[in-house]
């Protein structure tokens, strides 16, 4: 949990409005564009300073694309992204580079995201070099400090990524993300590849770092238990759209969107004494190339009606600070 006080007005760090990202599909002899994968299609949310906003959803729901698009690691097709009040949607390369000090990313795959030919020191130092921060000695001191912060001994500096376990590599990735003292960290499935006992170590570390440095996290994961544990607020995505967004407590206690409800009821709970009504959704997630008309969930929704086939629901505030995109909730 972050250090956001209950009664303080929320200060918005990042504001995302109507974000879309279409990936073109090319085909034929001249690679003409024959269609689009609508990975993200009209997503809006606020990221409040000091909070952890969790993004959940199944594969292909667009959560990763959203995470990368708000950092402009991929160019959004349309929509606006404001960071500390500044519209950064059309920042040029130079402006973005300066801004990247403020926003960093941690990746899922602790194996693929570290260059195997660089030592740990070089990996963590690289962002400092790129941003011309400090001289050699200062940078080395900073790397030592960062290793200490993430719980690695400084003698690890001269070693290479292959010498580390998955959990340790993830710590290296976190140290690299912290190097420039960012305000925002997008954590893209940071614990999915780790074993349970290591996963809890990394989750606790991320929480400690947030408290210590006042970080804001956009935390992307498909594990609902992880999301519920670490997030202050949770956004549930389905097929490129935001289905529901509310505080972690509310969304678990009283999910409003039928998809959220089904998603929570589908998670096996490690307690055989608990018996639950389980909602098993039929069928698969439709293709984002041709998403269903109207509400995207209507093909699998247990309460869908004619209106859902025609009209796309907008995200509205059904209860205080509890937003849902459903005609009937």
């Amino acid at each position, binding site marked *: 949990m972050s250090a956001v006080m209950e009664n303080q007005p929320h200060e918005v760090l990042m504001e995302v409005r109507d974000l879309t990202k279409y990936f073109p599909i090319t085909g034929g002899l001249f690679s003409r564009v024959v269609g689009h994968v609508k990975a993200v299609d009209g997503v809006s949310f606020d990221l409040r300073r000091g909070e952890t906003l969790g993004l959940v959803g199944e594969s292909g729901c667009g959560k990763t694309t959203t995470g990368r698009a708000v950092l402009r690691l991929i160019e959004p097709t349309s929509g606006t992204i404001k960071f500390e009040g500044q519209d950064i949607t059309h920042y040029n390369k130079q402006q973005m580079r300066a801004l990247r000090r403020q926003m960093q990313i941690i990746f899922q795959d602790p194996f693929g995201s570290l260059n195997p030919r660089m030592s740990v020191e070089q990996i963590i130092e690289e962002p400092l070099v790129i941003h011309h921060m400090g001289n050699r000695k200062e940078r080395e001191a900073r790397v030592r400090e960062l290793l200490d912060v993430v719980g690695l001994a400084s003698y690890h500096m001269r070693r290479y990524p292959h010498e580390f376990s998955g959990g340790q590599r993830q710590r290296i990735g976190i140290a690299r993300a912290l190097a420039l003292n960012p305000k925002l960290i997008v954590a893209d499935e940071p614990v999915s590849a780790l074993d349970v*006992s290591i996963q*809890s170590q990394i989750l606790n570390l991320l929480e400690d770092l947030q408290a210590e440095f006042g970080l804001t996290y956009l935390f992307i994961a498909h594990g609902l238990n992880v999301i519920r*544990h670490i997030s202050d607020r949770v956004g549930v995505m389905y097929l490129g759209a935001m289905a529901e967004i509310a505080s972690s407590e509310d969304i678990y206690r009283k999910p409003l969107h039928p998809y959220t409800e089904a998603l929570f*009821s589908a998670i096996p709970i*490690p307690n055989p*004494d608990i018996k639950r009504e389980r909602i098993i959704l039929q069928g698969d*997630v439709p293709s984002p190339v041709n998403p269903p008309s109207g509400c995207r969930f209507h093909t699998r929704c247990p309460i869908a009606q004619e209106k859902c086939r025609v009209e796309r629901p907008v995200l509205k505030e059904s209860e205080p600070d509890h937003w849902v995109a459903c005609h009937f909730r």
Partner: protein
Amino acid sequence: MPHRVLDVKNLSTYFFTEDGPVKSVDQVSFYIDSEETLAVVGESGCGKSVTSLSIMQLIPSPPGKIVGGEILFQGEDLLKKSPDEMRKIRGNQIAMIFQEPMTSLNPVYTIGDQIAEAVILHQKLDKRKAWERAVEMLREVGIPSPEKRAHEYPHQMSGGMRQRVMIAMAMSCNPSLLIADEPTTALDVTIQAQILDLMRKLKREFHTAIMLITHDLGVVAEMADRVVVMYAGKIVEESPTVDLFREPLHPYTQGLLESIPRLDQPTSEKLHVIDGTVPNPLHLPKGCTFAPRCPKAMDVCREKAPTLTAVSEGRKVSCWMHVDPQHVDPPTDGSGKEVAS
């Protein structure tokens, strides 16, 4: 009446690497009865998959070798079978489904052909009958319009559909033991719920014994009748599912259960952490392999390895804290089965 389908006794599988032998599975014993689901839980490298591959005798050799023990399947020792006899058992009486449904299907054959192949081989049916059987199995696992889908190739199906095809193939010869190695790990939660539901249904219909290998304790709680927990190649605890979750005995099991973020509990508290990492299998610590990470380790733990000892009805644990008979809990007469299914 339930009967013993599989009885593994003191199984040891080592991998002989350049740096020395790795004891992937070390003196492991467990059993599975018909119509029963046994879950094998543990983290990466604990030996759960090697155990299942040893049963199937699919251990790559060299470097792997089953160095000792017995695998009694329907009363007969599989380790004494010739490769030819094993081939007749594999896919027929013992079937297996894997984690990755894409790589375990052949991309250049239709799914109907792939299921029919096993049926022709083991059940001696002719081609047309085998195809009919394949379609029937696809219907059984809930694939819509199976007559049509049987002509499709694996790439035309989604992950959940492919896993259904794998299950259809595994069940096509009506096996008495199904080994499912992380069958839902690669799937999304809503699809996982469908597949778990399907496995429960098939177990009821076919009375198959299921060995479910997983790292997900939630899946264990929903699916298994009994559980064995593995750590560094050894079984550290064996228990009926309900008892294990109510009162885990081994400190490793306790740590595992406490370190998962829970949906059914408040989130404000910090997660429990098991310190350190799994030991290097080449240099296992002396005494109990979990002792270096164990919050309750005593002097004896670092000196002498405990053995798996029965402490009450159906419960065994390998821990020096529990060898004292005073610690034994009242017997539970296996009533947990009802709640877990």
